């Protein structure tokens, strides 16, 4: 954005404005775009989810407001705005007021590092992936505040459940990401996307692969296991249905949101859907190449970039449009999967949730971390690092060896873990049964 404004104001118009002013304007423009796009995505997602879940339950869903009910979310928004804001008498007013802000602010902040297309990252931090997850963990504090300040048993229970769930599923999520970070060797989301160029195989692992933007991590054994583990953890973090224990309406009303009304409730709702969008987006970015897709890199190579200053501006627009299209397509497909899971699965119990997270996902992701190390050792290390076996191998042979070994490790660990997990669960059930019959 800075480059574009710089070229436009000082180049085309020749006004000669100082750098800091252009910097300020470009930052303001970027912030405005983010603040507009985030609620729009949320509005679309509520409509999308309601229509999809209606179709799955053999209903039609919202269809009265506008063509096919497309203005329904806006009508809902107006309804939220005009509702009375009720604060319980026994509530802690300041904390009750602050909690929705603390929940919403981090989800919007997370947008700052999400790349939408080639060269379309709002803020390109070198540690953007870490920033994303660090900021996402702040909203746990907001949930705690909401649950406590409402002075309601259901709210407090819901907040406790939400935070326990978020804290325990953050670990497998981050562990599965570390595998990807190890392979890429960088914490920058942009370099993770750039790594995924190629055709089924990343052209960083195997130079000479035609670049169709399809060298996604999900096609490698390490990336596949990481993807499954991360997506499950993302479901838990976004409080999607198999893991929607914090707001289980049949048990604890609406969890931490129980005592909120009007636009404060709307803010929680906004935060939740924006978080879901971001989790789908980050899944698409990390394992499915983000904006990578056939044609984007070719278009971007002709465009105006820092490395290629005399390109054609038209290609910037084309590459951006195609990149955003691929990115949103992948994101919406993942959100469809989330809705699909909501339509297909009942809610888990809290002990099932904890068991699955701590006893299955974490060991699986730890084993996957080991596989990632093997992958790096086989594809990249030479004699200097002490990897003497692969000296003199061709890149194809190295890649094949890495693929087969990591596949064997991951499948073996998966089969072993499923057996151990099933055996431990069966044993637990047997003990429960014995106890019950012992009370006779």
């Amino acid at each position, binding site marked *: 954005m800075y480059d574009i404004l710089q070229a436009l104001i000082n180049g085309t118009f020749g006004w000669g404005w100082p750098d800091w002013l252009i910097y300020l304007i470009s930052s303001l423009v970027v912030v405005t775009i983010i603040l507009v796009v985030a609620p729009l995505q949320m509005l679309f997602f509520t409509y999308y989810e309601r229509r999809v879940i209606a179709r799955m339950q053999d209903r039609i869903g919202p269809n009265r407001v506008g063509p096919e009910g497309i203005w329904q979310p806006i009508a809902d928004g107006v309804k939220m705005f005009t509702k009375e804001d009720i604060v319980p008498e026994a509530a*802690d007013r300041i*904390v009750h007021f602050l909690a929705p802000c603390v929940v919403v602010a981090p989800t919007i902040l997370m947008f700052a590092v999400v790349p939408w297309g080639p060269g379309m990252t709002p803020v390109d*931090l*070198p*540690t953007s992936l*870490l*920033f994303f*997850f*660090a*900021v996402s*963990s*702040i909203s*746990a*504090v907001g949930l*705690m*505040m909401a649950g*406590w300040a409402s002075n309601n048993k259901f709210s*407090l229970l819901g907040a*406790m459940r939400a*935070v326990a769930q978020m*804290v325990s599923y*953050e670990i497998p999520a981050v562990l599965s990401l570390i595998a990807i970070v190890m392979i890429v*060797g960088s*914490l920058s989301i942009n370099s993770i996307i750039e790594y995924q160029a190629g055709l089924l195989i990343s052209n960083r692992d195997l130079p000479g692969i035609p670049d169709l933007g399809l060298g996604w991590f999900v096609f490698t054994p390490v990336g596949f296991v990481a993807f499954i583990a991360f997506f499950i953890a993302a479901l838990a973090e976004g409080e999607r249905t198999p893991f929607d224990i914090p707001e289980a309406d049949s048990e604890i009303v609406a969890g931490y949101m129980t005592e909120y009304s009007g636009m404060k409730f709307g803010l929680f709702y906004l935060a939740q859907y924006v978080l879901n969008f971001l989790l789908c987006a980050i899944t698409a970015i990390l394992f499915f190449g983000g904006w990578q897709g056939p044609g984007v890199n070719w278009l971007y190579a002709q465009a105006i970039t820092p490395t290629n200053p005399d390109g054609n501006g038209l290609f910037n627009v084309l590459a951006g449009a195609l990149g955003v299209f691929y990115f949103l397509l992948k994101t919406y497909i993942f959100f469809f999967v989330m809705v699909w899971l909501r339509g297909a699965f009942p809610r888990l*119990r*809290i*002990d099932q949730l904890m068991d699955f997270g701590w006893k299955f996902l974490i060991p699986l992701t730890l084993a996957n971390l080991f596989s990632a190390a093997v992958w790096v050792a086989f594809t990249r290390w030479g004699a200097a690092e002490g990897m003497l076996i692969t000296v003199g191998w061709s890149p194809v042979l190295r890649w094949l060896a890495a693929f087969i070994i990591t596949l064997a490790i991951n499948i073996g660990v998966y089969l072993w873990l499923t057996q151990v997990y099933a055996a431990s669960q*069966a044993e*637990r*059930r*047997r*003990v*429960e*049964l014995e*106890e*019950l*019959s012992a*009370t*006779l």
Partner: protein
Amino acid sequence: MEVVVQITFGVIAVFILVAAAMVVSVRNVIHAALWLIACFFGVGALYMLLEAEFLAVVQVLIYVGAVSVLILFAIMLTRQITGEGVRQLTNRWPVVLAIATLLFATVLAPTLINQQWNVPPAPPLGTPEPIAGPAELGRGFVNEFLIQFQVVGVLLTVALIGAIVIAYEERARRRKVLTLAEELELKRLREQTSPTVPAPVEAEPVVQESRSASER
């Protein structure tokens, strides 16, 4: 630019100090914890000002995201102190303040007096970055500071095992609240004259629920 940085530093520093003062003076324990979180944020902002963005992000991730949540959890689970009844400041707080200031001064005064304050000039452009990035930190952990790193790892593992040992509850000592369905099941089992090993697990959905009841 220098002035802007100094003003920003001043604002952040005042914010941290105010938040820290509120932590120890506010009456409600939960409010104190929330002020502590604000204080952590301020420290993260200071790191950001020093261009150690990795440390800033980690500060937010660990202190705001994990430690403070644990503190809040601990406060909410210990019932006696959640209310506003407990005063944090005793009547003799000026004495404590004086002692703390004296102790702090004995540490800091020699440094302040003997320090020459010759701040090194800014390095010329193009000098390599000091240790701030994750790659350098990681390399430091597995080369120079390997033993310290391992010791910290062992320490944390010990803490983890200790937490499990403290929180572990004997199965037999758990309070059991039976649901209606379970009582029916028990009744049915009692009516059977021979208390043999019950049927396979899948055939007994009621039994599964007893676990959820016993774990809450």
